[in-house]
């Protein structure tokens, strides 16, 4: 029973994470391969504050704000680049954040990470059970997903898609392209920060190893598989990928076979990503296309 709850919680967190990336990669055409940086910033911010004694609700709020500010800050240099250059630079940014976490021991605990991150209390009664955490996480996630969905359907989202499809036309019709992209990055970073904070409080332990390129690839797979640019796509994709990934951990295998699960899963996930690009770049749920 517990492992079903675990899978559900992980899936919910990744749904928010994937939807956050979707606002950039799917809706705005910003190929950010460093979204994990905002996830890490959210996780560390909330972990540092809450282990320092701040109330968890406040820590998470602060995490969202810090992540959004980081998004705003990094958008200035990143938005000067295009296409694949933007992608590589964002990836470099994420790795720089990871190196900071690895080296600034006074704040992050360095490679040892931050242990004993508190879980939210349930109506004043600690410790919180998995069921209760799931309810809290699902409620926050639903709020975030609804917010992102509303934005995507609003004229704001339509303008982002206009920019994604043809920046020149957007400019010729009086749209400040950079300002729109900056806002998208900021909102997207905030949502990723929330996902990171939830994740930190759920696992109660974080370390720089959690925020590598591997996580980026997993996230990319969630989004591309589900269908970028759609509202349901990232939710579906994150659900599928996390169920597969987390369920495999609980397979009753002998240790010498269990060792093989992770690499085989990596091969399959990577192959799916390649196959999707070739056969179905629009993902399971395609946006309306020609």
């Amino acid at each position: 029973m517990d492992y079903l709850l675990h899978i559900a919680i992980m899936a919910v967190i990744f749904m928010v994470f994937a939807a956050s990336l979707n606002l950039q990669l799917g809706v705005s055409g910003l190929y950010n391969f460093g979204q994990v940086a905002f996830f890490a910033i959210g996780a560390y911010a909330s972990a540092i504050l809450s282990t320092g004694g701040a109330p968890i609700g406040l820590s998470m709020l602060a995490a969202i704000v810090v992540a959004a500010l980081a998004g705003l800050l990094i958008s200035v240099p990143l938005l000067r680049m295009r296409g694949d250059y933007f992608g590589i630079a964002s990836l470099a940014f994420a790795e720089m954040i990871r190196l900071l976490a690895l080296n600034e021991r006074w704040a992050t605990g360095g490679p040892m990470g931050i242990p004993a991150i508190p879980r939210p209390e349930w109506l004043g009664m600690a410790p919180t059970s998995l069921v209760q955490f799931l309810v809290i996480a699902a409620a926050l996630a639903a709020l975030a997903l609804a917010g992102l969905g509303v934005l995507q359907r609003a004229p704001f989202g339509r303008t982002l898609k206009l920019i994604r499809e043809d920046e020149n036309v957007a400019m010729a019709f009086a749209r400040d392209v950079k300002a729109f992209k900056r806002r998208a990055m900021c909102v997207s970073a905030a949502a990723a920060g929330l996902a990171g904070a939830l994740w930190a409080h759920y696992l109660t332990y974080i370390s720089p190893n959690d925020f590598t390129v591997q996580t980026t690839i997993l996230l990319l797979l969630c989004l591309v598989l589900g269908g970028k640019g759609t509202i349901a796509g990232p939710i579906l994709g994150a659900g599928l990928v996390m169920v597969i990934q987390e369920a495999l951990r609980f397979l009753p295998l002998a240790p010498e076979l269990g060792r093989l699960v992770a690499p085989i899963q990596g091969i399959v996930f990577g192959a799916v990503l390649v196959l999707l690009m070739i056969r179905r770049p629009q993902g399971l749920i395609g946006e309306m296309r020609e």
Partner: protein
Amino acid sequence: MYYVELLISGLASGATYALFAVGLTMVYGTFRFINFAHGELIAWGAYGLLLFMLPPLSLSFAAALAPALALSAIIALGTERIAFRPLRKKAAVTILIASIGASYVLRSALQLAFGGDLKSYPVAFEGTVDLMGVRVTHVQIAMVAAAAASFAALHWLLRKTRIGKYMRAFANNPDLAAIYGLPLAAVRIAVWVLGAGLAALGGVLVGLDSNLDPFMGLSGLIKAFAAVLIGGPGNVFGALIGGLLIGTAENLSTAVISPGYKDFIAFAIIFLLLLFRPQGLFAGRTGVR
């Protein structure tokens, strides 16, 4: 002396970064996409050598080298055929995502075959030479020598041979190359085989210097990418200088900042170059040179 030693070890690792960068920059110059899976060719070269040196084959180092480089080249041609060629008319970002997927496959396969822990070769090259009071390891000498020989050969190939000129022509003006009917298939093979072979050679040298690590490809890719950006995408000899610059900058930086931030240098270089001079420090034209 301390600084001279840092400089020398920096030049030595820079030489391997330059070897890593050749394939990345040639693929970008010719086919106009960033091959994220290029790092795995480095790792597969290093592990390939191990594969041929361990039982059942138990080849000597010298005998295992050629098949190890060949293995990497075959992997490169395979990925090109399966993952990249079907996408050749798509946006560069689409191919980049496919190459990210391919890198995940290749790295996972490496972990599946060899496990996740560090490995080392069953031979040791531990000798050092004393050059006017400076201690230089044999491996460092091998690194610099291999890079020097490789780039000399590359220079000859690109300038003097027919295939080399075809390669440069495709990078310079692919439409005209097609109108002339220059042999694209041969160029494609040459670019991938050369790039993968040199990446694998670099991987082997790094393996001799330290350990084999399943993630060595990723870190190699980052260094290679920084070298490519310094040299200007498509510029083979710019990548040589770029690699050497990064290697020395990284090593010298450890004298002033925490060694934990050594890798930070490459990232910072990537970031700053993309921001201010995406066309590279040396001239701005594209094409394999």
